[in-house]
């Protein structure tokens, strides 16, 4: 089956090229930006109404075989660049308008890898605190970080924190202490979990565990995290993604999940995990 891989104009999935090359060896694949995909599908901006219209006759002509086509949806966020491409830079549309038509178009295809969820066309895209809450509600034998999210210009008492980090709740990857303005509004302070970083990533139901220094991972930890991969996939509604944990001896703390796999690309097994995952999906 032919696969169309859709990515955002600006927020490009770093795995897209690999996905494309691997799927090309299957039934054929093409890589398109979201705006190109939507225009081809017959979505056009109406200057008179300031809205997007869908000319379904264009869609039928372009994709007469939609019912036997596959979309690999790697649009995790819709950028303003995509919106500008859709409304000719008139500044009239918003990303959610594009999200709405994209979701409608996706429904016309037989197989869609990566479906809309909360805040994202490709699953549930959440800030750290909501990720931890979700994770803790499903998995009870792995900790989540201690944190405080102050409201307004709150003074956060960090005396019980071992390694307080002032972060943004949207910053999935910054876990090193750095000089920040502690007087910022709505301070988000996290106690950096003890231990060393370890990643688990997955593509569909194929997964692997690794560290960025390519150290051996303790077998117990590896087993636990491989088991976690399915839960992560389900709770974030993700087709693929990577999760950062901190391992301190046998103790694990979940830190962050990302729908992107930019760190996991450096894992030596990435290509085989990708291949295996795609094969299982395509079967």
């Amino acid at each position, binding site marked *: 089956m032919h696969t169309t891989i859709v990515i955002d104009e600006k927020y490009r999935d770093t795995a897209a090229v690999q996905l494309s090359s691997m799927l090309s060896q299957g039934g054929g694949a093409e890589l398109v930006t979201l705006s190109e995909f939507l225009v081809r599908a017959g979505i056009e901006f109406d200057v008179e109404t300031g809205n997007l219209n869908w000319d379904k006759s264009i869609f039928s002509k372009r994709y007469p075989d939609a019912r036997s086509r596959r979309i690999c949806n790697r649009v995790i966020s819709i950028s303003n660049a995509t919106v500008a491409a859709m409304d000719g830079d008139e500044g009239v549309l918003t990303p959610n308008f594009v999200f709405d038509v994209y979701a409608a178009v996706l429904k016309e295809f037989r197989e869609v890898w990566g479906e809309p969820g909360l805040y994202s066309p490709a699953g549930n895209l959440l800030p750290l*605190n909501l990720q931890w809450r*979700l994770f803790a509600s499903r998995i009870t034998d792995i900790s989540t970080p201690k944190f405080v999210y102050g409201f307004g*210009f709150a003074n956060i008492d960090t005396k019980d924190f071992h390694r307080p980090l002032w972060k943004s709740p949207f910053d999935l990857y910054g876990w090193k202490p750095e000089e920040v303005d502690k007087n910022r509004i709505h301070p988000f302070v996290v106690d950096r979990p003890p231990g060393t970083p370890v990643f688990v990533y997955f593509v569909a139901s194929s997964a692997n565990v690794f560290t960025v220094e390519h150290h051996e991972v303790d077998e117990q930890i590896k087993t636990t995290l491989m088991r976690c991969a399915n839960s992560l996939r389900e709770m974030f509604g993700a087709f693929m993604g990577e999760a950062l944990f901190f391992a301190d001896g046998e103790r694990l703390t979940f830190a962050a999940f990302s729908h992107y796999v930019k760190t996991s690309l450096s894992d030596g097994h990435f290509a085989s995990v990708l291949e295996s995952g795609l094969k299982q999906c395509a079967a």
Partner: protein
Amino acid sequence: MFDMIHLLTADSVPPPLLDSMVDVYISRRKLDLEKVMWYAHYFSPAAAQRLIAAYESLPEASRFSYLLSPATYEVVHVFDQKPVENCELLTLYAYDQLSIAQGEPPKGHRPDAREIWSLTGGEVLRRTQAGWHLEEAEKLDGLVVIDFDSPFARAIRDSPLMSRPAEEFSEAERNEILQKVKDAYTYVDRVAPIFGRLIRNYTRAARMRKCAAFSDVSSEHVTNTIGEIRLMNAFQEAYSMLKVAEALVHESVHNLLSTYEYLFGHFLLREDDRNYRPVSLWSGNPIPVGSFCHAIFVWFALYNLALHELRQPGLTKEQRKQIQQRRNHYASGFMVPTDLSDYLCDLGLFQREYLPTIDRIQEIVQNLVRKESHQGMEATAIAV
């Protein structure tokens, strides 16, 4: 809550909610004041008696002003935290209101004061050599106070907009604001008369604030001062007349909702955990659950305001485009394909009707947007 949904379309035949809820509010405020008077007896019978006497000294019209004011709401709302102190404050407020009604303070009331303010901040008695002189603030339609100078406008409080000291307005800045606010109100009342009525019914006073360092938030409402709205730096060029119009409607809808919740029960049944805030589908910022609850209605009202604006005859292409831009911004959060209730349901315990209501509003907006797309014509009022 289908009547609330209908009200916020500003359709020509509003539900009784728009006007009758004000009567219910006054009755309830009176009941709450009576409760205060009764409760205060346990702590200080003398203080309670003084409050009763003060309230009873007020002429009928002044009693309405007293009961409706954001100032007395705020005190009654937290009365039990400091019963005697709050009782004394309510008594002072009653005599302040009486002073305004009489044109001079009753004997012994604030003997050293140079000025005495009404409870909305709309009137002030100033002591002169010739005696007391009454000044009145400008008001929209004789009802909504535009307040620059009252203690309520200048106070330092916890909320973001009031947390830094109030700076002085120049004469030019005052005039700029007055003209803008009047023009904005006139505009709203013309394009969507129901929203004009909403503003008159639910907003007692618009406090104007100046703070040069402030760039974050341009308008504000807080739930413990029902009837008050605040605008920051409204004299600035970037704060256009249309932006003021948007703020007037936005904050008045908050007042409407706070009134509704005060009378009929809160949307959020348990205090939310501020550590877990949903991300706004409009701004992309995490906001408290309570704010998200109100925001749905506010954006819906603004979306309908834009629809009414688009129905004005004789709009230029540029004007039409600008309104469409705002319309789409207001509609934006509703356009997500996932149910709005999914964004909230795990983060709080809600009153039974609330989550179905927001999903219904989302459905209405999506249908209106799609109807416009397909038929290329302006949508008419929804049938609920």
